[in-house]
């Protein structure tokens, strides 16, 4: 029976033979449990074996499948089980986060097709990915294509510009009769025709093919307008060149418009060159963010050796080494070592953050001073960086409500302009004097088509939003979507949840009171006891003692008293630290002076720790949540922006008043129960205010969702990120100022852009149609129309790019 060799520790060969023989479990009545256990432990054993000896295991192949339809981790386990049971499969690991299955299999027994079959049988799908769909590859390919397109566009522009500069003076010869007499007009026209052909068929070809492709899809775009405009001017000119008699016999001058055709194409290409150059800058911040990802990680193998591993092969639970000056590869928890890490790229916080054992570290941040090892807790799409990138990408893909009108207009823009141009032609033809009606109708027809610019409308909002969401991420402000940005612009009231926003949200020692003893000495004794405790208040005391530079002394006989405090022997004396019941239980009485001081501290909503040494109550320690240094300044900045800042807290009115005064807030709600936070937001909204709610996400998710704009401070809590429309990576109120200032500047830019784009078209089209002619005798040359059109989209883009200069302070 093959069970025995398996148990005796034979690795792969025995295992496969076991599978091949495929002994039915029922062959071991009553022993199936044992068999399964053996298989399990064997598989674990093999896993480590396989990673070290992959090169030796030639008969096994590895296949990676993209699985879809998995909604939870148990789905992943199910797929994994189904794959593992497939004959010939050596090992199957399904990663739910990356939606990938990695399967080692024997090609003799299994094939990619049977593996897929197994996944499908489990009820999930296998995605046949085109080889180029990974984000990084797609971006690289796009960059390459864009660079090539830019070069080609520049070439096309220079050809058009060069030829237009020749065509222009030649066309003007006829303006000087003295010169014109020496030239055969007929021949000159043919020369101009030959010079114009390359402009049309080399430089302008893309316009014509695009317009034709669009036409077949019943879609009309910018290129449609250019094509009809330049095409009409060109065909008329060709007719006048080839058959001038047709015109002269009807009393018309056989005029040609080659200069118009060539100049329009050159100018529009110039506009496109400038536009493309500006457009690449709108996503610069985003690209920089994606480029932050580390390429490799130095993983510590179980044997102790350090191996550089490509980042996509790093697994959860791996131990990774980071040396000074290196990038942190992915997210994890520090296991050993001590260092300062620059997290500015993720949080916008300029000061390095110290990291010690147990602290979280994040991929793409930069290790500054020390060296440390961390255990990987997140990879791939789960990492903080990936989430930030995803959030910014989503925001850039969202549509702002302000854009709705522009969207509606651009959907019908081009066909409408074509209709206006046709009507212009008809009206001029019918109303102008017979001898000039055809050229006038034609020139105005072309001018209308060319001046109309849907691009400016289309670019107005998205470019500003792309620049601003990228800029926000740079400063640690993650904006969920364009709508949040627009709402933040309207905010006139900011409601701050005190704990965790104005204050740090964690206890800190504020007062040390000692009776007949040195305060520092008392603190040292207490810290010695508390160092052994795990209570958050104890941590605050230890932190405070360390901050005071007190040396730690040893404590023995430590004893935690549930719900009351702790006791230990320090320097030969029994030290008790805890609430008054701890002392009362030990029969220790408080002196009147101490009682009075305790009441004072309690009145300030502080938590009081009572200290007894050698059976005597000797001191008090006041612990409270403390105000962040940056809060007062940020609140003043908000008030300077014309925003009323309101605070809410669960504290009693006195404490609330004290904190409010400290940070310069005049209106506050005290004694607010956690479940009433959302109704406070509603109350403010009922006053007709647009409310931004700032919270740390702990029990204020409903309030964040109720507010017009919810800002979650400190990215620690996922709940808050879900409910909030803006997430602040840095744990201080400065981010609120940044978010509101950024939104104001962005919406202002968008409004300028939209105003410009609408006004430009609303004025440009009637002028080009000749509306001013009856009054002032003004007509717009199609060449001027082309220059205006090219400049209009470039100016909208340039205006959006001004947001790159945004700085929060």
């Amino acid at each position, binding site marked *: 029976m093959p069970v025995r060799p398996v148990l005796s520790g034979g690795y792969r060969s025995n295992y496969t033979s076991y599978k091949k023989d495929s002994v039915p479990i029922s062959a071991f009545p009553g022993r199936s449990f044992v068999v399964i256990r053996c298989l399990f432990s064997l598989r674990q054993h093999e896993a480590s074996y396989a990673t070290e000896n992959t090169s030796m295991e030639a008969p096994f192949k590895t296949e990676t499948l993209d699985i879809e*339809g998995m909604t939870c981790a148990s789905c992943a386990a199910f797929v994994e089980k189904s794959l593992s049971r497939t004959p010939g499969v050596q090992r199957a690991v399904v990663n739910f986060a990356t939606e990938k299955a990695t399967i080692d299999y024997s090609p003799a027994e299994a094939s990619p097709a049977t593996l897929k079959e197994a996944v499908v049988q489990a009820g999930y799908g296998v995605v046949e990915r085109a080889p180029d769909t990974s984000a990084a590859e797609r971006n690289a390919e796009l960059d390459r294509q864009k660079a090539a397109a830019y070069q080609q566009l520049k070439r096309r522009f220079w050809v058009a510009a060069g030829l237009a500069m020749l065509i222009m003076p030649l066309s003007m010869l006829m303006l000087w009769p003295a010169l014109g007499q020496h030239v055969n007009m007929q021949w000159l026209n043919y020369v101009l025709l030959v010079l114009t052909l390359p402009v049309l068929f080399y430089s302008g070809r893309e316009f014509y093919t695009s317009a034709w492709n*669009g036409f077949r899809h019943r879609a009309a775009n910018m290129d449609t307008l250019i094509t009809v405009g330049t095409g009409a001017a060109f065909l008329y000119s060709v007719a006048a060149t080839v058959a001038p008699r047709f015109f002269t016999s009807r009393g018309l001058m056989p005029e040609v418009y080659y200069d118009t055709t060539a100049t329009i194409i050159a100018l529009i290409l110039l506009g496109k060159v400038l536009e493309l150059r500006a457009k690449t800058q709108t996503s610069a911040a985003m690209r920089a963010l994606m480029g932050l990802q580390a390429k490799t990680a130095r993983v510590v193998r179980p044997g102790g050796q350090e191996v550089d591993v490509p980042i996509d092969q790093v697994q959860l639970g791996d131990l990774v080494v980071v040396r000074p000056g290196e990038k942190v590869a992915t997210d994890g928890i520090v296991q050993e070592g001590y260092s300062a890490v620059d997290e500015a790229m993720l949080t916008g916080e300029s000061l390095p953050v110290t990291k010690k054992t147990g602290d979280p570290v994040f991929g793409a941040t930069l290790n500054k001073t020390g060296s440390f090892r961390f255990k990987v807790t997140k990879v791939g799409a789960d990492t903080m960086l990936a989430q930030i990138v995803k959030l910014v990408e989503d925001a850039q*893909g969202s549509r702002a409500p302000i854009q709705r009108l522009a969207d509606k207009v*651009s959907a019908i823009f081009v066909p409408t302009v074509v*209709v206006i141009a046709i009507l212009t032609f008809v009206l001029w033809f019918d109303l102008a004097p017979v001898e000039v009606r055809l050229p006038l109708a034609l020139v105005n027809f072309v001018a209308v088509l060319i001046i109309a610019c849907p691009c400016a409308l289309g670019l107005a909002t998205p470019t500003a939003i792309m620049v601003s969401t990228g800029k926000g991420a740079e400063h640690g402000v993650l904006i969920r979507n364009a709508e949040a940005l627009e709402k933040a612009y309207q905010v006139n009231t900011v409601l701050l949840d005190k704990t965790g926003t104005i204050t740090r949200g964690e206890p800190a020692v504020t007062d040390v009171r000692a009776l007949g003893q040195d305060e520092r000495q008392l603190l040292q004794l207490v810290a010695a006891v508390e160092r052994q405790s795990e209570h958050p208040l104890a941590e605050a005391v230890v932190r405070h003692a360390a901050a005071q530079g007190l040396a730690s002394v040893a404590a023995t006989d430590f004893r935690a008293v549930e719900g009351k405090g702790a006791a230990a022997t320090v320097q030969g004396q029994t030290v008790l630290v805890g609430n008054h019941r701890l002392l009362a239980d030990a029969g220790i009485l408080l002196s009147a002076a101490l009682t009075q001081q305790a009441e004072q501290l309690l009145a300030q909503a502080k938590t009081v720790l009572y200290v007894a040494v050698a059976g005597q109550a000797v001191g008090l320690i006041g612990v409270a949540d403390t105000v962040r240094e940056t809060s007062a300044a940020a609140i003043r900045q908000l008030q300077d922006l014309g925003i009323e800042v309101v605070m809410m807290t669960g504290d009693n009115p006195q404490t609330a008043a004290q904190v409010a005064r400290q940070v310069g807030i005049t209106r506050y709600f005290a004694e607010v129960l956690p479940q009433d936070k959302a109704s406070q937001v509603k109350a403010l909204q009922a006053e007709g205010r647009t409310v931004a709610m700032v919270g740390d996400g702990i029990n204020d998710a409903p309030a964040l969702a109720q507010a017009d704009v919810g800002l979650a401070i400190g990215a620690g809590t996922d709940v808050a990120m879900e409910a909030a429309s803006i997430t602040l990576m840095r744990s201080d109120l400065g981010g609120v100022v940044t978010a509101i200032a950024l939104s104001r500047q962005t919406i202002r830019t968008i409004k300028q852009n939209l105003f410009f784009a609408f006004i430009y078209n609303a004025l440009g089209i009637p002028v080009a149609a000749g509306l001013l002619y009856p009054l002032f005798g003004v007509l717009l040359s199609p060449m001027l129309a082309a220059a205006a059109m090219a400049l209009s989209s470039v100016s909208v883009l340039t205006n959006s790019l001004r947001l790159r200069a945004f700085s929060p302070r």
Partner: protein
Amino acid sequence: MDTTAILVTGAGLALAAFVVWYFFFSARPTVSAVTAVGGVQAVAITVKGGYSPNVIEVERGKPVQLSFYRAEENSCSEELLLPAFNIRRDLPAFKTTLVELPPQQAGTFDFTCGMGMLRGRLVVT
């Protein structure tokens, strides 16, 4: 008004009417998604001056996979927007780009190029 003017007026108005009908009111080809393995509804779309097909019907609740093949270099079509799903994707020329989305609600959702000129519709039933 002479004969030529009358002819030009008539032809112009007819042309304008044609433009309005052709771009706004003419019927568009509709394609329903095919449900493939694992309940994914897959549709292949060619991008060339527009989207073909440009009206796509899918069923609610099942994941949808749209594969866009961009068969041109023209910069107009280089961006794809699906605003209802917060999707903005760059489409490389002569490559297939997959866009996956979960249609949770019934309704008609537009997808457009970066500037809203090229348009398609995703009809979720």
